[in-house]
C-alpha cells in the first residue's frame, strides 16, 4: 500500500467505509489468497514426481498455519500502534479489529487482506528447501518466521515503522514480501544443505503444464496484490493494475528472447519464470511509475534474475527452485528501479525518482533493501539454528530417496491404486483392489 495513503487513513478525522472501495478490496483479498494455491502448482510442477504433494502442501499449509498466526498475533505486531521497530499487542486476538473504517474499508477486511500477503510470503520460502526439509520443522519454521521476520518488516515499511518514516517507496511489497522471502530462502537453503542428488544427477521438472498453470494464476492473483494495495478502487488502483499488466509482458518477451539466443529454444519453464520475475519487480513500483516506465522496468528486471539463475545452477548452492534469484534479486531490482522511475506526475502521494531529478530517492530505496536483506538473513539463520537444536530439519538420505510424498504424507501424487490392498476398519480381512477397474472399464458395460 502507499505510505501516504496509510498516513492519510491514520490521520482521517471522520473515517467512513466507502462501498466501492470495499467491493474492490473484497475481490482483491480473494485474488491474493488464490496466489498461494497458484504458487503450489508453480513449485509443484518444478519438482520430481515423488515430491509433488509435499511441495504443494508446503504452500497449502501456510494457508492454515500462517493465516491463523496472522489473525491472532502477527497482524497486531505488524499494524497496531507500537514503536519504530515493531507494533504492539493492541490488536492481538483481533481485539479492536471490527467493522469500523480503516481508511475507507472495514478494519476487519484490511486485516484479512494483509493476511493473504503474510501467507504467500512464508510459502515463497519453501521453494528453497523442497524435496528434503521435514514437514513438521517446516511448519514450525514458517510460523516463527511470520512472527519474528514478516511482522516486524511489514511494520517498518507499512505499519508506521522507521522505513516508512524514512520515505521508502514500497507499493505492494517488494521489500516486505520479495526481498524478505528471497533472502530467507537463500539462508534456509544454505543452512539445510543440498539435496543428495544435487549436482550429481539431473533433477527435472515433473509437470511443466503445472508450472505454466501456476504462473498464469499467479499473474491473475497479482492484480489483487498490486491493484489492491491502493486500498481504494480509484485511479491509483487502475495505475497499479495496468502496470501489473504491462511489466510482466516485457519480462516475458525479453526472457524468452534471451532463452532463444542463448539456447536456441524458447522454453516454457523460462517463460513461466519470466512472468513471475516481472511480477516481482513491478510490485514495489506498481503505483508510483508511469505505464511506459513499467514496461522498461519489466524488461530491465529480466537480466539480473536470468543470469543469477544461470549462475546459481552451476554452484553448490541448492536453492532448489531459485527463490533467491527470482524473488530476492527480482525484488532488489524492482525496489531500486522504483527509486529510478518514480514520478509524482502519476502519484502525487509518492515521490520523484532519479529520472525526475530526485537521486536521493534511490539512496532511500537502497537503505530499505539493505535493512531488509540484513534482518531477514540474520533472523532466518537464528530461527533455523534454534529449531535444529530441537529436531533435525532435513530428512535422511534414505527418506529423500524414497520421496517426501510417501514418507511425510503417506500419499502418492499419481498412484494408480493397482496392487494396493484395502484395509477394512473392522479387521484383518483385506480385499485386493481389483487391478485396472478404474482405468479399464469393462467394454460390455459402457
Amino acid at each position: 500500500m502507499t505510505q501516504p495513503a496509510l498516513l492519510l487513513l491514520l490521520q482521517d478525522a471522520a473515517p467512513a467505509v466507502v462501498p466501492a472501495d470495499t467491493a474492490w478490496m473484497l475481490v482483491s483479498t480473494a485474488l491474493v489468497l488464490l496466489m498461494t494455491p497458484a504458487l503450489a502448482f508453480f513449485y509443484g510442477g518444478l519438482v520430481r514426481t515423488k515430491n509433488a504433494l509435499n511441495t504443494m502442501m508446503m504452500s497449502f499449509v501456510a494457508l492454515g498455519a500462517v493465516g491463523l498466526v496472522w489473525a491472532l498475533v502477527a497482524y497486531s505486531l505488524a499494524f497496531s500502534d507500537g514503536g519504530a521497530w515493531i507494533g504492539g499487542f493492541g490488536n492481538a486476538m483481533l481485539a479492536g479489529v471490527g467493522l469500523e473504517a480503516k481508511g475507507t474499508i472495514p478494519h476487519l477486511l484490511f486485516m484479512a487482506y494483509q493476511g493473504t500477503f503474510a501467507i504467500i510470503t512464508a510459502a515463497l520460502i519453501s521453494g528453497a528447501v523442497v524435496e528434503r526439509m521435514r514437514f513438521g520443522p517446516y511448519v514450525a519454521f514458517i510460523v516463527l518466521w511470520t512472527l519474528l521476520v514478516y511482522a516486524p518488516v511489514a511494520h517498518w515499511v507499512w505499519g508506521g515503522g522507521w522505513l516508512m518514516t524514512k520515505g521508502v517507496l514500497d507499493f505492494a511489497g517488494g521489500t516486505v514480501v520479495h526481498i524478505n522471502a528471497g533472502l530467507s530462502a537463500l539462508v534456509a537453503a544454505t543452512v539445510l544443505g543440498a539435496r543428495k542428488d544435487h549436482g550429481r544427477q539431473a533433477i527435472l521438472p515433473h509437470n511443466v503444464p503445472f508450472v505454466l498453470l501456476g504462473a498464469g494464476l499467479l499473474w491473475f492473483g497479482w492484480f489483487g496484490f498490486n491493484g489492491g494495495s491502493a486500498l481504494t478502487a480509484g485511479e491509483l488502483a487502475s495505475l497499479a493494475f495496468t502496470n501489473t499488466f504491462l511489466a510482466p509482458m516485457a519480462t516475458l518477451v525479453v526472457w524468452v528472447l534471451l532463452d532463444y539466443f542463448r539456447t536456441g529454444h524458447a522454453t516454457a519453464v523460462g517463460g513461466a519464470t519470466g512472468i513471475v520475475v516481472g511480477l516481482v519487480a513491478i510490485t514495489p513500483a506498481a503505483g508510483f511509475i508511469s505505464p511506459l516506465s513499467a514496461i522498461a522496468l519489466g524488461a530491465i528486471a529480466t537480466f539480473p534474475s536470468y543470469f543469477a539463475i544461470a549462475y546459481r545452477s552451476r554452484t553448490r548452492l541448492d536453492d532448489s527452485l531459485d527463490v533467491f534469484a527470482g524473488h530476492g534479486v527480482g525484488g532488489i531490482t524492482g525496489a531500486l528501479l522504483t527509486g529510478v522511475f518514480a514520478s509524482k506526475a502519476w502519484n502525487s502521494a509518492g515521490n520523484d525518482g532519479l529520472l525526475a531529478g530526485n537521486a536521493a530517492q534511490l539512496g532511500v530505496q537502497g537503505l530499505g533493501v539493505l535493512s531488509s536483506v540484513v534482518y531477514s538473513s540474520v533472523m532466518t539463520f537464528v530461527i533455523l539454528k534454534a529449531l535444529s537444536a530441537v529436531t533435525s530439519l532435513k530428512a535422511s538420505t534414505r527418506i529423500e530417496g524414497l520421496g517426501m510424498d510417501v514418507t511425510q504424507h503417506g500419499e502418492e501424487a499419481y498412484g494408480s491404486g493397482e496392487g494396493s490392498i484395502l484395509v477394512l476398519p473392522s479387521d484383518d480381512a483385506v480385499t485386493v483392489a481389483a487391478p485396472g477397474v478404474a482405468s479399464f472399464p469393462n467394454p460390455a458395460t459402457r
Partner: protein
Amino acid sequence: MKLIIAIVRPEKLNDVLEALYRAEVRGLTASRVMGHGGETERVENYRGTSVKVGLQEKVRLEIGVSEGFVDVTVKAILASARTGEVGDGKVFVLDVDQVRRIRTGERDEAAVTPAVPTEV
C-alpha cells in the same frame, strides 16, 4: 554370453547406471515394473480409505553381456543398488542361446558388451 536381469529400487537406478557406466558396461534395457520382495507393506491414507501398498515400484534392467563381463556387471549392480533394507531387489544371470545385433547382423559375443573388460 549371458543375460543379466536385475530388479532394483527406482531411487537407486541412477546409482546403478553410474556404476555400470564406470564398469564400461554398454547397452541395457530398463523397464518400470511392480513387484514385491517381502518388505514391510507401506500404508497410505486417502480421506478415510487406508490401503497397504503391496506391490512396490521397481526397475527391471536387462543387460546382455559376454562371459568376461558377467562378474563385472553383477558386482557393479550389487555394490550400487544396495541399501541394506528388505526390498533391495535381485540379480538373475541366465544362459542365452543366441544374440543378434539387428543393425549389422553380428552374432553372439560380437553382438553384446565386448569380451575383455578393463579392470576397474
